[in-house]
């Protein structure tokens, strides 16, 4: 499934997964290539604890480059079920592959989540590309 982007430069990718009891929506979250480029080389990534829940727009992670710290806001609401362990020794992975291997964490979305509402608050890739062109 394709990515959606927030105006704070996070991306979210929804996948369906069959958990033991019922179908669940899993959201993978990261920062965009554009954001990574703006920040420069990351030296530290602080990821949330597994089990933590976030509302959409809540501060969920912190990424630090050589020059500055930046907050990552949860683009959708959910519960943290997985974090990218590779980043604790290799925060540069976010720089090398922000929209792939450099993902930050995964959220279990609530069962009544509907993918069709994503477009209400988030942008498609095409919309995001226009958005960042205006920004620069």
């Amino acid at each position: 499934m394709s990515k959606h982007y927030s105006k704070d430069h996070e991306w979210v990718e929804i996948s369906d997964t069959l958990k033991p009891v019922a179908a669940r929506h899993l959201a993978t979250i990261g920062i965009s290539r554009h954001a990574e480029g703006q920040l420069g080389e990351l030296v530290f990534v602080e990821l949330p604890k597994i089990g933590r829940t976030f509302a959409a727009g809540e501060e969920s992670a912190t990424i630090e480059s050589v020059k500055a710290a930046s907050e990552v806001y949860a683009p959708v609401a959910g519960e943290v079920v997985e974090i990218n362990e590779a980043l604790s020794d290799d925060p540069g992975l976010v720089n090398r592959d922000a929209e792939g291997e450099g993902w930050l964490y995964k959220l279990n979305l609530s069962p009544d989540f509907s993918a069709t509402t994503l477009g209400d608050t988030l942008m498609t890739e095409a919309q995001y590309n226009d958005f960042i062109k205006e920004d620069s």
Partner: protein
Amino acid sequence: MASRTPLFDFHQRHKARMVDFADYQLPIHYAAGIIAEHHATRQSAALFDVSHMGQTRISGAGVTRLLAQLLPLLPEAIPIGAMRYSFILTPSGGIVDDLILARIREDEFILVFNASRKQRDREVLHELINTPEHKAECKVEHLDESHALLALQGPNAAAVLAALVAPTTPANESSSPADLNFMETRQFTLNIHHDGGGDGNGNGQKGGQKIPARIARCGYTGEDGFEISIHAAHAESLAETLISSGGSSGRDGAQVALAGLGARDTLRLEAALPLYGHEMDEDISPLEAGLTWAVPKALRTLATLGKGEIGCIGGGALSAALQNPDSLRWRQLALIAEDGPNARRPVRQGATCHKPNSSNSSQLAATADKTGETGVITSGGFSPTLNRTIALARIPRSWQSQPDTPFQVRIRDRSLPFRVAKSPFVEHRYRRR
């Protein structure tokens, strides 16, 4: 709108990411990024545009007398070609700016100051000069209005620069920048190719120019290196020539990388070099900022033994503090993050610094840095060489500060474990006789 240095177009061509710094547009880094530029400086050589800094020439019959009133130094004792690190003080002994003074001739000196303070430095200088004693005798020229300043730093810097010295030089000039020792300066003639290229051995190409340049063996990285002052008209040609040097000479790794302000800061932090506005400001005495060594021993002895006052602005306060060190409030420390999950979590200026197991955090206000109850981080960041967070801190003078003494640095609701490090974090590699 922030000013441009003579290398503005050069930076655009080389795809710099620009930032406004001290009212100038300068590269924070180029395509390689801060960490790569940092490593290139320590492993090979890197070129920095530092043309934003102040360069002021003072000359005339009374110049040493003037400078003795401006700085806590003995200018008449400085050999021609030698340089000194010093500072302009406030009347109460705080620091207006730190600077480098170079003696060019018997009656001619050059001062290099921080860009962020040069306006203030010049106000102080002009106040001093516009007195009957000095007015007629001293001439002041602000060279940064017409000259670029380039820093070439790293173990390969000397070889790169030596290759540019034109083979025929006037008899009274030194033959090579490689012969300079740390904190020495001389005038040279450089062989600069128009668009770079050449064989890197100082052999002029058709169209190559011979350009005068003042070269000082000093810098702000802890590495061997040079600062080159050259007329603005030739700055781009020199920069292009330098970055195309070395590669063709067959020496592996002898390339000159471009580096920006980001790497300049990570390098100076590893070298534990102070930065104005961080380790120093108008409320801090040099004796509280780890800079006692920069006051010549003869002046320190004079003051400590009560045999006289240092004669510069703020000299009275400095002398009193030298005589009575118990009146000083702070000392400067180097801190390194302990091993663990937070080893690379950055700490930045303003974070508070505490003895381990110190009292409840609710008693510690964020603005406690000058109350004497807590220490404060004056500079902090990531060390690419040591691959962890390092910091410089100001702590109450009475606190223990031997290497390995543990401290905690607080950011938000966390206490991060640090210990006192040997300073500098990365050994200096200056060329000394």
